C-alpha cells in the first residue's frame, strides 16, 4: 500500500523576518523615448543585452541596447537630476547588427569609454572617440573578433599589465544546422600584446562549454581574480561550471577536484556577485531554468586559504525563483540576467532577475515575471516584483539596474526578445539613504576594475568588488551604489587592485563621490561637469 501522502499544501520558505521596504517603479519606456526591440530567430534565442555607461562625461549613464538582427540602439541620457527619465536615440557608431550583448570598458585607459560588442559573427571592440561616438578598433588594437556566436564577456587587468585581458564566451557552432549539441566553440582569452597597447592572438580556453556568462572575480581574496564561467548544459557534453586560474604570465588553468572544485551542471545563463554576509568573500547567484543557485563558500578557514567549495543556499534564502509568483502560471521559470544592488537603500543587497521563456517552450512558463528579491535582515529574500511594479510578462533576457537620473534611486532597463525593451523609473519616496561613488586612478585601468570598495557603517563593512562582466550579456560602467539605511554618514575607502588601500574618508549620505588614489573622497554634484 502506498505510504506516501500527497496533500494540498504550499511549499513554504523559512519563516520571514521583518519585511523590507518596497521600492516603487513606474514604467516610462515610451515617455523616456525607448523603442528598441531585440529580434532574431534561432541564433538570437539567447542574448539581448544592455550596456550602461557615461560616454559624454556628464555623469548620467547612457545606454546601448542590443538589437539582434536589427542594429543596436544607442540612447543618450537627457535626464535632469532627479527629473523624469529622458533618452534620445542618437547615431553613435554603435548601430551595428547581429549584436547579442555589450560591455563598457575603458580599454585604452584614455578616460573615454570604449565598448565591446558581442555578436553573431565578428565581435568588435569599439573605441570611444568622445561625446558618444565610437569606431571599430579591432585592427588598431589587434583584437581578433572571431566569427562565432558570442554570449559572454569579462575583463580584468592582470598584475603588471597596462592593457586589459578580455575573456569572450562563445556558444554553439552556429554553422552546425542540424546537431549543435556538443558543438560548443572555444571561449577566448585576449591578453595584452607585447607592447601593452593592443591584444595578442587569443588563447582558446579549452575545454569550453557554451558560456552564457563570465566574471573575473577575486573569489578567494588572493589578490588575483579568477575567471568564473557559467555554462549552458543544453549544449555541452562532458561539461560543467568552470573556474579558471588566470595567473599573470602563466597559461590558464582550470580549478579541478584536486582544488576542491565541485562539479555543477546547470543551464547556466547569468552570474551575479555580492558579499551578502559581510565576510569579505563574494557570494554568487547563478541563473538557470526551473532552479537558480545562490552559492556561499562552505568554509572560510581562519588562515583565509579558502577552497572553491560552495553550498547552494538558494532554497534556504528564498531565491530559487523557480516559478512565477504572479500572472497565473505555475510552470517552471527561465532566468537570465541577474544583478545584486541595494534597490531599497536599506544597506542590504537585493537581487533583480530577468525572466523569459527561451522560445515558446511549453513546459516552462510563458508568462514569466521578472523577480525583484529584497533581502531581509536575516539573509532571506522577499519577492517584491509585483508590488514594486516590475513584474513584466515580456520575454526578458539582459538588463541593467542603474541610477539614470542621479537621484540615488536605482532604475531598471530590461531587454526583451521579440518585444520592446522596457525602462522603469524608481519613483519611491520613502527609501533609505545612499551614496554613489566612482573609483578612479591615474594610468591604466582608470576605473579600478578589480578594486574593492569598502563602506563602513557603524561596525558593518560592506565590501563591493568592482567587476567588468557577468550578468547576461549586459554590462555597467557607472556609479557604484550603496544603500545606507538610516545612516547619515559612512566611512569609505578603496582597496586598489595592486593591494594598496586608500585612507578612510567620511562621506555624507545622499551624495556622489569620486574616489581617487591617494586622495580623500571628492564630492561630485550632478550637473557640475
Amino acid at each position, binding site marked *: *500500500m*502506498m*505510504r*506516501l*501522502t*500527497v*496533500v*494540498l*499544501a*504550499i*511549499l513554504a520558505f523559512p519563516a520571514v523576518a521583518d519585511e523590507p521596504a518596497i521600492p516603487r517603479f513606474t514604467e516610462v519606456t515610451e515617455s523616456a523615448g525607448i523603442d528598441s526591440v531585440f529580434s532574431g530567430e*534561432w541564433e538570437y*534565442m539567447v542574448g539581448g543585452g544592455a550596456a550602461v555607461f557615461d560616454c559624454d562625461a556628464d555623469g548620467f549613464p547612457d545606454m546601448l541596447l542590443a538589437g539582434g538582427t536589427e542594429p543596436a540602439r544607442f540612447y543618450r541620457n537627457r535626464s535632469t537630476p532627479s527629473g523624469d527619465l529622458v533618452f534620445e536615440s542618437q547615431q553613435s557608431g554603435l548601430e551595428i547588427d547581429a549584436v547579442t550583448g555589450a560591455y563598457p570598458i575603458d580599454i585604452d585607459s584614455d578616460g573615454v569609454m570604449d565598448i565591446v560588442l558581442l555578436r553573431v559573427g565578428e565581435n568588435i571592440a569599439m573605441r570611444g572617440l568622445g561625446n558618444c561616438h565610437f569606431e571599430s578598433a579591432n585592427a588598431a588594437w589587434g583584437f581578433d573578433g572571431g566569427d562565432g556566436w558570442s554570449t559572454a564577456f569579462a575583463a580584468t587587468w592582470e598584475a603588471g599589465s597596462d592593457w586589459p585581458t578580455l575573456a569572450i564566451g562563445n556558444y554553439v557552432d552556429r554553422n*552546425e*544546422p*542540424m*546537431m*549543435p*549539441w*556538443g*558543438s560548443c566553440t572555444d571561449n577566448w582569452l585576449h591578453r595584452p600584446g607585447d607592447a601593452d597597447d593592443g591584444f595578442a592572438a587569443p588563447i582558446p580556453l579549452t575545454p569550453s562549454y557554451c558560456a552564457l556568462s563570465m566574471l573575473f572575480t577575486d573569489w578567494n581574496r588572493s589578490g588575483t581574480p579568477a575567471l568564473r564561467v557559467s555554462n549552458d*548544459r*543544453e*549544449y555541452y*557534453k*562532458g561539461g560543467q561550471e568552470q573556474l579558471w586560474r588566470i595567473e599573470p604570465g602563466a597559461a590558464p588553468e582550470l580549478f579541478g577536484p584536486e582544488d576542491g572544485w565541485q562539479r555543477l*551542471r546547470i543551464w547556466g545563463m547569468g552570474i551575479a556577485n555580492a558579499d551578502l554576509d559581510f565576510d569579505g568573500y563574494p557570494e554568487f547567484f547563478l541563473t538557470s*531554468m*526551473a*532552479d537558480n543557485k545562490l552559492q556561499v563558500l562552505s568554509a572560510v578557514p581562519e588562515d583565509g586559504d579558502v577552497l572553491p567549495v560552495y553550498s*547552494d*543556499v*538558494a*532554497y*534556504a534564502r528564498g531565491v*530559487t525563483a*523557480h*516559478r512565477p509568483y504572479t500572472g497565473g502560471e*505555475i*510552470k*517552471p521559470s527561465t532566468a537570465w540576467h541577474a544583478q545584486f544592488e541595494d534597490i531599497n537603500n536599506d544597506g542590504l543587497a537585493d537581487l533583480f532577475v530577468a525572466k523569459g521563456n*527561451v*522560445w515558446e*517552450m*511549453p*513546459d*516552462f512558463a510563458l508568462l514569466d515575471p521578472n523577480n525583484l528579491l529584497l533581502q531581509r535582515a536575516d539573509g532571506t529574500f522577499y519577492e517584491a516584483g509585483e508590488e514594486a511594479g516590475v513584474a513584466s510578462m515580456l520575454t526578458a533576457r539582459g538588463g541593467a539596474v542603474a541610477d539614470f537620473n542621479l537621484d540615488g534611486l536605482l532604475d531598471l532597463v530590461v531587454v526583451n526578445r521579440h518585444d520592446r525593451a522596457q525602462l522603469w523609473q524608481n519613483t519611491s519616496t520613502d527609501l533609505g539613504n545612499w551614496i554613489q561613488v566612482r573609483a578612479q586612478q591615474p594610468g591604466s585601468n582608470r576605473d579600478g576594475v578589480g578594486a574593492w570598495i569598502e563602506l563602513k557603517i557603524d561596525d558593518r563593512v560592506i565590501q563591493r568588488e568592482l567587476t567588468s562582466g557577468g550578468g547576461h550579456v549586459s554590462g555597467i560602467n557607472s556609479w557604484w551604489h550603496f544603500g545606507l539605511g538610516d545612516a547619515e554618514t559612512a566611512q569609505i575607502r578603496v582597496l586598489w587592485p595592486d593591494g594598496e588601500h586608500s585612507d578612510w574618508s567620511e562621506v555624507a549620505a545622499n551624495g556622489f563621490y569620486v574616489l581617487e588614489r591617494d586622495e580623500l573622497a571628492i564630492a561630485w554634484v550632478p550637473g557640475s561637469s
Partner: protein
Amino acid sequence: MGERSRTRPGVRSWIVGITLVLTLSAPASAQLGHDDARDVVIGWNRLILELVRHTPTYSPPVASRAFAYLGVTAFEAAASGDPSVRSLAGQLNELGPLPQREAGADYDEAILMHAALGLGANEFFGNTGPTGQRAMDFMVSRTASDLASGVPPDIVARSEAFGAAVGAHIAEWARTDGGAVVENLGFPYDFETVEDPALWVPTNRIAVQQAPLLPGWGRNRTFAMPDGATCSIPPPPEYSEAPGSAFYTEAMEVRDAVVNRTSEQEAIARFWSDDPMLSPTPPGHWISIALDALEGDEADLYETVDVLARLGTVLADSFIGCWDAKYRYNLVRPVTYINRLVDPGWQPILITPPFPEYPSGHSTQSGAAAGVLEHHFGDNYTFADATHEADGLAVRHYESFWEAAEEAAISRLYGGIHFRSAIEEGLAQGLCIAKYTNALVTWVAP
C-alpha cells in the same frame, strides 16, 4: 566471439551519412527501400536519443515511454508490408488493429517509415526546445526530399500518407495510457512528507524536487505485462536503526562503498549515472547499446524494428513496474539515513534521484533490457558500449548483456544512491517483466 559493436560515429556524422546514402541509393523501384527504411529507423533513434537528453520533461520513465511507442510505430510500419510479420495489435494492451495498406498498391518502405516516425517524433517531442524543433524539422524535410528522389510521386504520396496513418494510430493509443501529460517536469505541485524515518524525504534543495518524481507512473497502462503490479517484489529489509540489523548493515555497505571506492568502481558509477538532461537517460543508454549491436550486425529492417519494439516496450514496462513498487514502499534514500544516523557529512558520488529508493530503477530496467536482448542476441554477445564517448567517458566492454546489466545495477551502490536489496530485487523484477515481452509473437509461423 569477437565484439560485435564498434565505436560509432557521432550523431552529426550519422546525419551526413544517411542523407548521402539515401541520396545515392534512392530506390528505383517502389517495392524496394527496405535497407533505407532500416537506416531511417536507426537515424530517427539516434536523433531521439538527443531529444531525450534535451527535452526537460524527459526523466527516465518518460523517456522509456517514448522509446516504446516509437519502437512500436516503426515495427507496425514495417509489419504492415509483410504478411509474415505479425502485428502487435491485440498483443500489447489496448492496441487496436492498425491501418491496412491498399491492396495491390506500391509503397516505398523508407518513405513510409520516415513519415511514421516523423509524426511520432513530433507527437512525443513536440515540447522540446528550439534546437530540438530545428533538428526535427531538418530531419523531416531533408530526409524526406532525399528519400523521394527518383520515386514516382503517387508512391511517395501514398507511402507518406500511410506512414502518417500508422504514426497517428500509435499516437492516439499512447494518449490514453496515463503518461501523456507531464506537468512541472514530473513533480507534483503540492506534496507533504510524512513524519516517518523509514520514508522518503527530499534529498536536495532544488525547489521543484521537494516532491517526488511522477508518483502516479506505476498506474500507467503497461505494454506487454498486465499491469504495474504484475512483477511485484518482496518488501525491502525491515527499517531499523539498530546496528547489526539488516537495514543498518545495508546502509553501512553503501557508506563504505563510497568511502572506500576504487577508481574502477567510481568509473562504473559515473558510466551508468545516465543523469536526465545530461545523458540519454538509463533507457536511452540501452537503446544506444541496441542500436550499436544492430548496426554492428548489419541487421535488416525486420530484425531492427523487432528488437527496438521489444526493447522499448520492456523498458517502459519496467519503469511502470518499478514505480509501482517504489511508491508502494516509499523507502528512504541512503543519504538521508546515513547523514542522520551515521555521518552527517557523508555524500554519495552520484546525484541522488528525487524519488523513493526501492527498488533501483536502473536495476529493474537494465535487468529487463538484458532479458530481452539476450533472448534475441544470445547470452554470450560481447560488445563495446560507447554511449558516453562524446561526454568523455571511456568505452566499456562486456561479455554479455547480463554482465552489463549487473554492472549497471551495482553502479548505484558504488554511487551511493541505492541499497543492495534495491539492486538485487530490481534485477529480478526486470527479468520477470522481460518474460512478458519475450512472449510477444512477431513472426507468423510458416
